[in-house]
């Protein structure tokens, strides 16, 4: 858009000519992406505290592979290489936080490659992908290596290695054995909630520590990088529905708090359902998006064959995002009135 300034009078300085506006807001794509990554730092730290070295390895492999895949694919397609915009970095990070710490390293590798190359670049790169790359990556490896991906280990006692003993995630236990089993392990609800809140439980790297995630989320909300329109309805819907239908003994006997804090809900709702690119951008559509995602999550958790539904819920809603945006675009200023006027 810049045109070389042609100075007429000699004493005049070279003037830059461009079409307005000539001032710009401070935000930039790079800043947003990197800041969101920064907001995930608490969760990263917690995951390292709980799962130690293996966690670090998974995260590193994801980040490096993602960046390499992005650069490589852009090079192949002869596009400018845009690693500084931070979106590939963020994708890698989020994928890592979605994997179990005990995953052998080829899983984060394959996951990242699929996420960036197939889910993102094949569709035209940043801004054009239909599905959440990180989640596509995760779903892909989940299906391909379901056995590994559905066996979790308890937080490690030593830094360098994980204890071999595998334990089921709270949700699996809840689904398989019921709340009683959970209480057997955690003794009291208070303790159960506390451990969920702090993240002392089996699960994917990033999903375990509710408090860490909420910290990051609060930061992003404050900076207006994400808004309430998707996450809050999402989480609330899950809470309400699980409270109504989640109980083994009749309606209204479910445990909403447990459901809201377990699984990938907090991570998914605040950091993944909020992905600009793959969600609707009309605010009202975002609320619907959130509610539907909540319904699907609950449906899968309670009725589906799989203990955790957040990932599939978000992916399913990604399909509908364009439709929602299309159907719910707000009425243009004065369009209604325009009908009255004859031209």
């Amino acid at each position: 858009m810049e045109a070389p300034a042609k100075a007429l009078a000699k004493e005049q300085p070279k003037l830059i000519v461009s079409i307005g506006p000539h001032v710009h807001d401070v935000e930039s794509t790079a800043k947003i992406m990197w800041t969101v990554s920064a907001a995930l730092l608490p969760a990263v730290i917690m995951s390292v505290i709980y799962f130690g070295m293996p966690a670090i390895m998974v995260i590193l492999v994801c980040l490096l592979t993602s960046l390499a895949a992005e650069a490589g694919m852009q090079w192949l397609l002869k596009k400018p290489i845009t690693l500084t915009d931070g979106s590939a970095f963020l994708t890698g990070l989020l994928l890592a936080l979605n994997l179990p710490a005990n995953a052998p390293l080829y899983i984060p590798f394959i996951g990242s490659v699929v996420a960036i190359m197939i889910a993102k670049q094949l569709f035209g790169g940043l801004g054009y992908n239909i599905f959440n790359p990180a989640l596509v990556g995760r779903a892909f490896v989940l299906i391909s290596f379901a056995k590994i991906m559905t066996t979790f280990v308890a937080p490690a006692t030593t830094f360098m290695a994980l204890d071999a003993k595998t334990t089921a995630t709270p949700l699996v236990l809840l689904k398989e054995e019921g709340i009683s089993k959970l209480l057997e392990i955690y003794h009291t609800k208070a303790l159960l909630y506390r451990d969920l809140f702090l993240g002392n439980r089996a699960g994917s790297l990033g999903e375990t520590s509710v408090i860490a995630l909420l910290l990051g989320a609060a930061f992003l909300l404050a900076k207006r990088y994400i808004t309430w329109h998707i996450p809050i309805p999402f989480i609330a819907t899950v809470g309400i529905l699980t409270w109504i239908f989640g109980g083994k003994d009749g309606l209204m006997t479910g445990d909403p708090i447990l459901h809201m804090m377990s699984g990938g809900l907090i991570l998914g709702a605040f950091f993944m359902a909020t992905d600009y690119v793959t969600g609707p951008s009309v605010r009202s559509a975002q609320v619907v998006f959130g509610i539907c995602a909540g319904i699907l999550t609950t449906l899968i958790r309670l009725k589906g064959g799989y203990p955790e539904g957040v990932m599939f819920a978000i992916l399913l809603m990604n399909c509908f995002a364009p439709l929602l945006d299309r159907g719910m675009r707000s009425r243009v200023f004065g369009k209604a009135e325009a009908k009255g006027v004859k031209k």
Partner: protein
Amino acid sequence: MSNNVSLGTLFKNGVFGENPVFRLALSLCPAVAVTSGVKNGFLMGAAVLFVMTMTNVTVSLLRNFINPKVRIPSYVFITATWVTVIDQVMSAYQRAVYKEMGLYIMLIVAFAIILSRAEMFASKNKLLPSFVDGVGMGVGFLLALMLLGVFREFLGKGSLWGAQILPGKPLLIAIMPTGGFFAMGLVMGWLNWIDRKFFGGTGGGGGGHH
């Protein structure tokens, strides 16, 4: 098309130039559905090959005999007949496979590829060209299915034609529904790329017809 093209070209055309799956993008359903293994792909391809050839031949033979007004129904009926035959045979002699893909065998009757060849080619040509065209198209279809089959079975099961080659199952997803679509998309794109790279093709994937 007319008879003055040599039979050889006619055959090659069916296999490559106008490959029913990758070029004409006709009859995609079975191409994705039954290619989780090489063997299934082959048998499906064989079935289609049989029906295509027989239908082409029959139609060509009867071309002066059938009144244009009722030709489409007649072609459909003829196809249906041959499909019934192959369906019966398979269900008797290939029971295991038939369990998996019987539905698609029966659905051969609905493949536009067959009807369109009958309508576009066989009804206008003599016996021999029609036969060759049928075989060409059929083989093209068969090869396409086997290519996908190899791709998917190897990745998904680590085996080829049931024979285990790799110790484990590298990428299970390859043999699941989603894998089918991925494989199809990636192979198509790959072929387009080769075409553009080495044969100066224009390479946007075909239109999409049954």
